[in-house]
């Protein structure tokens, strides 16, 4: 329940796994570029993209499991800052304007990475909720709380960036379109889970109820993803490597990895806050106070 300050062998293995999968994801991304530039195989590029995405997701899971690494979140945030600053530089000043949307399309370089990682954070919350219900290990409760909060943060940012992009392209800040509506539902459903946790005093009931609520709310995540395909939507469908110009890749990928590292660092720190709060909450009263109470 209480975060472990010792670096265990398991932590070391998990960190090594994170580094290997993260590097693999990056190399596969570069390899995909080589495929596209030479026009060899779009299918191969799609496979590489899926592998890279899985690699990123695995990195998040691996890193979050290793509580022993006290300085890892700070390192991740520093790497994220480098990725985001360089990605934003390329997105704002180097990448060309898009054919129809002109310079407004540059919002994509922050909007899309926010969307990918927001859904990834909520996926981790779902995984943590399921693992908690099976194991009753409160580490997973702390991780779920962290992932839900960071997921809400990114979903909120997603809605703001989307509104700013919608005004010049659609003429309105907001529309009750399927993608936007399901995203708003997602934001409020998970915000409700954090509110629920504030109102329940019993740690066990709080953990169980919020795990169940997280699993139920997660149903909306695939609905958000597929909403643009299932219904007529103002929002465009997902792009693929074959529909995005290669000149847009670099800023998009740098920012995607930047948000991923930032999100992971945030979740690790937030999970530590949750675990320390819980430890203080269930700690026995000091001896003098215990004597007075008796």
């Amino acid at each position, binding site marked *: 329940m209480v975060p472990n300050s010792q670096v265990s062998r398991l932590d070391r293995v998990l960190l090594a796994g994170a580094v290997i999968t993260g590097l693999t994801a990056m190399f596969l991304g570069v390899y995909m570029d080589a495929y596209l530039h030479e026009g060899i195989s779009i299918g191969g590029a799609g496979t590489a993209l899926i592998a890279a995405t899985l690699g990123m997701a695995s990195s998040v899971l691996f890193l979050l499991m290793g509580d022993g690494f006290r300085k890892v979140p700070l390192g991740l*945030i520093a790497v994220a800052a480098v990725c985001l600053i360089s990605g*934003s530089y390329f997105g*704002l000043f180097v990448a060309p304007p898009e*054919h*129809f*949307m*002109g*310079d*407004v399309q*540059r*919002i994509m370089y*922050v*909007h899309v990475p*926010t969307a990918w990682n927001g859904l990834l954070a909520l996926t981790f919350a779902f995984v943590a909720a399921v693992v908690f219900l099976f194991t009753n290990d409160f580490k997973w409760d702390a991780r779920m709380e962290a992932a839900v909060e960071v997921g809400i*943060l990114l979903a*909120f*940012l997603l809605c*703001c*960036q989307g509104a*700013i*992009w919608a*005004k*010049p*392209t659609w003429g309105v800040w907001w529309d009750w379109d399927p993608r936007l509506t399901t995203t708003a539902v997602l934001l409020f459903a998970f915000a409700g889970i954090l509110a629920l946790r504030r109102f329940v005093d019993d740690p066990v009931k709080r953990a169980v109820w919020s795990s169940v609520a997280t699993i139920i709310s997660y149903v909306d995540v695939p609905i958000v993803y597929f909403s643009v395909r299932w219904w007529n939507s103002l929002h465009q469908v997902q792009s693929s490597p074959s529909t995005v110009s290669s000149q847009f890749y670099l800023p998009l990928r740098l920012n995607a990895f930047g948000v991923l590292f*930032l999100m992971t660092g*945030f979740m690790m*720190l*937030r999970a*530590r*806050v949750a675990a*320390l*709060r819980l430890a*203080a909450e269930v700690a026995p009263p000091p001896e003098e106070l215990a004597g007075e109470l008796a």
Partner: protein
Amino acid sequence: MSGGYITGGWGFVWAAYGWTALVLTGYAISLFVRLRKVR
């Protein structure tokens, strides 16, 4: 907009990037403050 092409719009671009940076920085600061409080 001119002939289907959106002209200008840099104000919206800066707003999106600026708001994103502000929110993420604010959250990072809040995390460190909360961590210091619970320690």
